[in-house]
């Protein structure tokens, strides 16, 4: 009797689950007039209090254009990744989601089948968008020959620069224009260290290493940008790595880097004037942005040419979910978002007259409501190059972006996405070793003469060679397909 009742309960639960999972709608014929649908769109960024107000306007417009309403859900920066993981694994129905190399991992989700393959959809419903987006994006974002998300049109290259406090440089008559690497900074750091007591010459950062890193930035697997670029290497074995880390350690010993650098997680806000040099990623006119947000003048010297990496082309994209019931309509919406300046501006800047004012020359001026109640992450939404400019922005901003993109050099591994499933255990072990050694080494806190060898030894114990071989094999195969 007891067993029977338990059995009954299990049967009931199972049938309940099956009943709920089984409902699926049969799609209508796409030829006749469009039915009204609601598209769920997950976007990264702090939820804004005026979002509902703006959504009303957006829906009015999209209803008219493609007979769809948008249910835009913003998930905060720090939790986007976790939340999307749960949503994807649970098979929840949604239509569009933000994806990238650094949040809601693009290549992983694409391989897993969480996102739809978009080539056909795009040919049918997104031709205008295809023309608007820089081809480098559409090519570089392909995984195993398929495109799984629509890249955001913005700066395609990635360029590491040293940003410095220009006020301090002028005060002490320092001319940084000849600087090309961190080694050249020595005399300037010395001046700052001696003359300015409250200023740390270096705002803690990881040393810049000129490689194209696979997986995460700290991990050892990388391709060289110069010399033999077709061989995958352990970047911690390279001569140049040793040189740069030695320089960093030298700076650490001389007190140019804060003594708690290896463990500190301080964010070094730009608007506190207690640093002289920091590492940043550049986009055209970034120095104006920095200066404006910090309240004093900031300038920069480049550390490398702008390169096109996998990370930079997949830096911001919109994917259509495999669970979407209306992928066609989602594609139509994305097409509209990337080509229609009115919609793009509405989503990004809010409502004219409430959040911003339109000036006679076509530029816009922020109203207080935009900063407080509708501050959207512009780069995460869609085509940036069709946005109106702010009144204090240089007129040729978007031209400068296009020029920057044209001048960016493709990395040797652009478009190669490593599939780590065969060597998962080794990578986990290597990741552990890396997180033990890399932060202290990269921030200059420990002597590379001693620890770099120990680090490499431990990496090989953890299975480095096997992973390198696997990557090389996949890379060679990928290259063979390219030609």
């Amino acid at each position, binding site marked *: 009797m007891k067993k029977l009742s338990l059995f009954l309960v299990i049967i009931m639960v199972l049938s309940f689950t099956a009943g709920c999972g089984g409902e699926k709608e049969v799609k209508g014929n796409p030829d006749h007039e469009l039915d009204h649908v609601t598209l769920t769109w997950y976007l990264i960024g702090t939820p804004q209090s005026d979002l509902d107000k703006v959504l009303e306007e957006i829906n009015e417009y999209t209803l008219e254009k493609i007979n769809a309403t948008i249910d835009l859900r913003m998930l905060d920066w720090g939790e986007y990744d976790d939340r999307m993981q749960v949503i994807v694994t649970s098979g*929840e129905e949604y239509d569009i989601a933000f994806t990238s190399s650094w949040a809601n991992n693009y290549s992983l989700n694409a391989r897993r089948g969480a996102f739809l393959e978009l080539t056909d959809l795009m040919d049918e419903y997104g031709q205008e968008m295809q023309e608007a987006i820089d081809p480098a994006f559409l090519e570089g974002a392909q995984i195993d020959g398929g495109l799984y998300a629509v890249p955001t049109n913005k700066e395609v290259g990635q360029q590491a620069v040293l940003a410095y406090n220009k006020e301090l440089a002028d005060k002490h008559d320092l001319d940084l224009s000849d600087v090309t690497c961190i080694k050249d900074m020595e005399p300037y750091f010395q001046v700052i260290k001696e003359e300015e007591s409250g200023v740390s010459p270096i705002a803690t950062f990881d040393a810049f290493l000129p490689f194209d890193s696979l997986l995460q930035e700290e991990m050892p697997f990388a391709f060289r940008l110069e010399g033999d670029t077709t061989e995958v290497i352990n970047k911690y074995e390279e001569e140049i790595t040793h040189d740069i880390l030695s320089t960093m350690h030298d700076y650490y010993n001389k007190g140019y880097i804060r003594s708690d650098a290896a463990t500190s997680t301080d964010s070094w806000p*730009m608007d506190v004037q*207690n640093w002289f040099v920091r590492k940043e990623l550049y986009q055209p006119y*970034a120095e104006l942005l920095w200066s404006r947000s910090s309240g004093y003048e900031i300038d920069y010297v480049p550390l490398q040419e702008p390169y096109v990496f996998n990370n930079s082309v997949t830096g911001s994209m919109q994917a259509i979910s495999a669970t979407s019931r209306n992928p066609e309509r989602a594609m139509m919406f994305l097409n509209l978002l990337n080509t229609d300046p009115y919609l793009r501006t509405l989503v990004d800047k809010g409502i004219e007259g409430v959040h911003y004012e339109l000036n006679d020359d076509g530029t816009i001026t922020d109203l207080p409501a935009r900063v407080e109640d509708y501050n959207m992450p*512009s780069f995460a939404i869609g085509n940036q190059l069709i946005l109106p400019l702010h009144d204090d922005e240089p007129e040729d901003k978007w031209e400068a972006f296009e020029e920057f993109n044209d001048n960016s050099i493709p990395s040797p591994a652009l478009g190669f996405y490593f599939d780590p499933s065969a060597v998962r255990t080794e990578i986990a072990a290597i990741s552990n070793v890396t997180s033990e050694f890399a932060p202290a080494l990269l921030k200059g806190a420990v002597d590379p003469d001693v620890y770099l060898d120990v680090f490499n030894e431990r990496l090989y114990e953890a299975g480095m060679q096997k992973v390198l071989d696997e990557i090389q094999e996949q890379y060679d195969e990928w290259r063979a397909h390219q030609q």
Partner: protein
Amino acid sequence: MKSFEKISQQTKASSEEVVNLGKKKKYDPHSFSKKTNIVMNILLALFAFLCIFPFVYVIIISLSSEQSLAMHGYRVIPQEWSLDAYRYLWMMRSQLLRAYGITIFITVVGTLLSVAMISMYSYAISRKQFIYRRQFTFLVFFTMLFSGGMVPFYIVMTQFLGLKNSIWALILPLAVNAFYIIIMRTFFQRSVPEAIIESARIDGAGEFRIFLTIVLPLAIPGIATIALFSTLAYWNDWFNALLFIDDPNLIPLQSLLMRIENNLDFIAQNAHIGAQSESLMASIPQDSAQMAIVVIATLPIALTYPFFQKYFVRGLTIGGVKE
């Protein structure tokens, strides 16, 4: 009560007299010797200080200026005092007040609900006359040992129960706690004798009446304990909000704090979003403002604790039958 105290005082006095008669030295078997007393006092004071100091430190940091924090780090006596952090909170007051409201609502409703459900469930399985008592105890016990994991939990909550973006998503998951049910069952078995239930039944009381007017008053210490645990659990919960709430109007206080923390971590790990993150950075409160939020999120619940504690001490001495 009173008479008992009197008697104990009398015995104490008389024992003192006896000791005094024997030796000149005063000896009280209920107290420590002077030396032990001093050592104990110092140790306890140290321990109390260690417990309180972090919180005092948090208050101090919330009152120091951002500039001096960035320049010199955390200091016990900051370079420069400032109320900026609290001014910042005043600026985000509408959001904070709403979060406060949500937290208070889920704490009050949740605690009432969970106390009601836990006490009824555990009373039922504590009664020997209840036939399926073993099966229901097993159900509870089973969930204590095994859980489905986060994704099935998420699927049940969002797809079967449709609780996404609903205030019940913050209340229901914490409403019944298997461990408290086991505690309460044992408590009912120990402190509510069969005899008292039987006598109530002889007087003509039904099951509900027995439960409400006889059993519950006897179980007050146990219920107070569980109520306190539930209150703390609801007040401190952020995880359910993280999973189920997108709507910024439904975010409780701790979750707001957690979001700020997560965002700061995120920026620290993703420096490469670079030029575009400057507005993100500006939107996140800095150290002192964070500490100020910690202060206002913790103080109210810390202040309610003494009231609960008083209740415990009184409640624990109540007994039904003297044997």
